């Protein structure tokens, strides 16, 4: 059993690790934790320390990773919905304000997480799990269907005839279905064949997600010769208290949905919660996404500590549980404290890093910077998953760009994750593999 001093030390170490690396575009904390776990034997000797190290790193990642998404348009799947509003802030010279809004949501989300975690969650989680676990496929499919149903058709309005208007408008929806299925098939191949070798198992989805959500934006920045105006680095925001409260609560709710139900991502949870709380406006949306990501990542991880349930949700939790699963109430309370400690440090670090990045960005040519980021993303992919990773990255980038061409939701690229899981949950993986002529040997990478 760790002493309180050791808990603080490991949390601080994890937070420092996360702060140092999470602002770099393309790095995902799960990949880094996997590398750390493999290369650093200390966690094998003191396995109880790893959950707290991971918790600190995860909190720091959730806070710091807002920076590459705001300033460099590089997002992971949980940030994709936030890219459009934060980019609008950036082109108005208000990138730092967007970071502040997100941080307000994140701090609110951290407090809600700890309060609910220490009071309601341990009580309601076990019956909730018993109630809903047989219906997870239904819930997941329902959210996917709603994503398609609720897309606002942007095009077609200017066509001359009604039938033409209808057809052009619906091209967007059909494009969305195409993107979802293409992403889904790519995800299916990546997950069910040995194309990305088993030694890269922990990072095999990373090239795909960089391709879906990171690279297309960077390429767009390059192709459109994007210019970023001087950024205002003053610590001020324009948002109402009601908006911040509404965004935080909605985001936290969505985050919990995503944390609780496997495969429901933060973005999907935020979509649902945004509808329930009627959130409107860029500022409210950014706040809600800040809160949502805390609950989605940290909340899911925190479930591992709940002694009455001990649910393993998210790649981080799976990774940690392979070394050590917390078992006692004291570890649960330690974890709640660790979240607040890491959140405080990460909050301050993000503010200062944001100011620094905003100043650097003002002095640099954004197009040249985007070239550097594109190369960096390719290098990271190569280091993580070798040549197969680069091939997956290229295909995923094309699919990500297709969503731009069809003017449809970029979040449809989540099909890369959702489609193979839905196929698996309905027991059709073998049928689909057979349909594509893939044999069990291919599954082994032979």
């Amino acid at each position, binding site marked *: 059993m760790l002493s309180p001093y050791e808990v603080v030390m490991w949390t601080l170490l994890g937070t420092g690790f996360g702060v140092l690396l999470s602002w770099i575009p393309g790095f995902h904390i799960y990949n880094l934790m996997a590398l750390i776990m493999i290369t650093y034997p200390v966690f094998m000797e003191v396995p109880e320390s790893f959950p707290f190290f991971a918790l600190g790193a995860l909190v720091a990642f959730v806070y710091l990773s807002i920076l590459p998404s705001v300033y460099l348009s590089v997002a992971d799947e949980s940030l994709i919905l936030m890219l459009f509003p934060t980019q609008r802030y950036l082109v108005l010279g208000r990138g730092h304000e967007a970071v502040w809004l997100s941080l307000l949501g994140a701090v609110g989300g951290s407090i809600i997480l700890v309060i609910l975690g220490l009071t309601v969650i341990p009580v309601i989680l076990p019956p909730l799990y018993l109630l809903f676990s047989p219906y997870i496929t239904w819930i997941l499919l329902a959210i996917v269907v709603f994503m398609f149903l609720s897309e606002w058709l*942007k095009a077609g309005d*200017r066509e001359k005839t*009604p039938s033409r208007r*209808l057809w052009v408008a619906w091209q967007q929806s059909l494009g969305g279905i195409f993107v979802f299925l293409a992403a889904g098939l790519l995800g299916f191949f990546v997950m069910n064949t040995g194309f990305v070798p088993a030694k890269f198992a922990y990072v095999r989805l990373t090239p795909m997600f960089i391709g879906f959500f990171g690279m297309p934006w960077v390429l767009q920045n390059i192709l459109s010769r994007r210019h970023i105006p001087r950024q205002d680095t003053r610590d001020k925001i324009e948002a109402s208290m009601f908006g911040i409260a*509404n965004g935080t609560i909605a985001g936290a709710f969505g985050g919990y949905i995503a944390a609780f139900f496997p495969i429901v991502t933060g973005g999907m949870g935020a979509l649902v919660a945004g*509808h329930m709380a*009627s959130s409107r406006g*860029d500022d409210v949306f950014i706040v809600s996404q800040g809160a949502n990501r805390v609950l989605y990542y940290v909340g899911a991880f925190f479930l591992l500590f709940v002694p009455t349930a001990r649910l393993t949700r998210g790649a981080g939790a799976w990774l940690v549980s392979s070394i050590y699963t917390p078992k006692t109430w004291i570890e649960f309370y330690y974890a709640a404290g660790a979240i607040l400690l890491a959140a405080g440090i990460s909050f301050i670090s993000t503010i200062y890093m944001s100011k620094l990045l905003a100043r650097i960005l003002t002095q640099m040519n954004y197009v040249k910077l985007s070239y550097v980021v594109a190369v960096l993303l390719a290098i990271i992919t190569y280091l993580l998953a070798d040549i197969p990773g680069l091939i997956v990255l290229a295909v995923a980038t094309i699919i990500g760009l297709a969503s731009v061409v069809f003017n449809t939701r970029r979040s449809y690229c989540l099909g890369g994750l959702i489609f193979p899981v839905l196929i698996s949950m309905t027991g059709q993986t073998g049928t689909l593999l057979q349909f594509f002529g893939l044999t069990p040997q291919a599954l082994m990478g032979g």
Partner: protein
Amino acid sequence: MRGWTHFLSGLAMASFFPELLADLRMGILLPVITGVYGYLPDFIDFKIRRFLWKRDYIVDPAPWDPKLKIAPMTIKVKDVREDKRYQFYALEGVVTSVLSESNDRIIFKLRDDTGEIRVEAFMDDYIRFKKIYGDIKPGDKIRVPGYIDIDNEGLKLVFSDAPHPQYIASMIAKAIDEAYESGRMITVKVFNIRMSGDIYRRFLIHYDMPTRSIKVYIGPLVTTGGVPIKGTEVPEYRRVGEAQTKYPFLKTYPRPTVIDAFSGPEIGYQKTKLPDGREVVEEVFIPWHRGFSHSFTAGILFALLLAPILYLINYHHIWQLVIASMLGYWMHVIEDQLGFMGNNLLPPLTKKRIPGLMLGPNIYTGMNFATSWLMISLITWNINRFTTPRPVPLSDPVFLLILLIPTIVIYSYGVWDSIKFRRLYKVYWKYYATLEALNEEELIGGI
């Protein structure tokens, strides 16, 4: 209500049928259709009917470049006509002569391969023109944006960064007059002004009833999230356009209609008789919304259509799913009936919209959340009572009561809010109905 609330209501209806829940547990996912039926009325209106609705007038202040899909569209000199007056275009050509230039004005001639035209820039626009183009001279090749105008010397292009609002005001006034004279609904499609960089020029249409005038204000550039960009306001002398109507009109929504991002709205104008016998033209915002699609009759018809499909795919619980889908559809109608606009509930037996119950007029967000919570509660309650052994070992009424506490509290407040508000109802219900329609379009558009 928001789309998810309707969708969730549909899903909740499925949970009342143990056969459908059993299917879901076994991985037979067809009952998700009930969610689709819960959303279907809005889907029909916003994804289909909106595009098929007949438009009598197109108000397009700044036509898009067909390839770039942004304004202004570059046209040839031969295409500059009087009917394009005040619309925002761009011309590209060679400067042939500078006719005059002073401290605050420049007039020059521009030629392309189809003809020659006068171009003028004055006052604040002259300063901006000089910043962009510097000192122009014959032979210079330039592309000039601006609005088309006409004076004693004929057609010309006035350098600007927005259309002149007079165009919009005149078109709206014309539509109102036609609605009065023809006696039928005239629908005007107002397009937005999309500029380079995914930003929009905001404009406002204000109906000044006492003076029978339509006033249009050109605002700043805004982002798709509606954030104004500082320093992009137009000069005062081309900020306002005004046009008189021949006939009286009734504006039920007291704030100006704001048009910026997403697509511009359709506005219907319909002649109507007031209780005192006067005839006026009334504004009907998004006239294609909440018609037959939002009725119990439509729910029955669409649900019946499902039956043969389910039969063909050999689904075993056809009628349970058909009834659950119909209930999901009806829930949408009922939920919309809680607001102001109401619906035509049973066509063809009923002909007009029946006004809504006006619950929680000042707590839209709360009512939406409470309804979503109600549906989550029903799903949870149903799953619990159809699971053996019960994960929550409480009696059905007690468990339901506990789950419904947030909904009961918010709905109770909504009823109280409604009672308070009803005093003003007779005067302002149409205003709130239009506000609700506007909210709904913004919310669905804002997904």
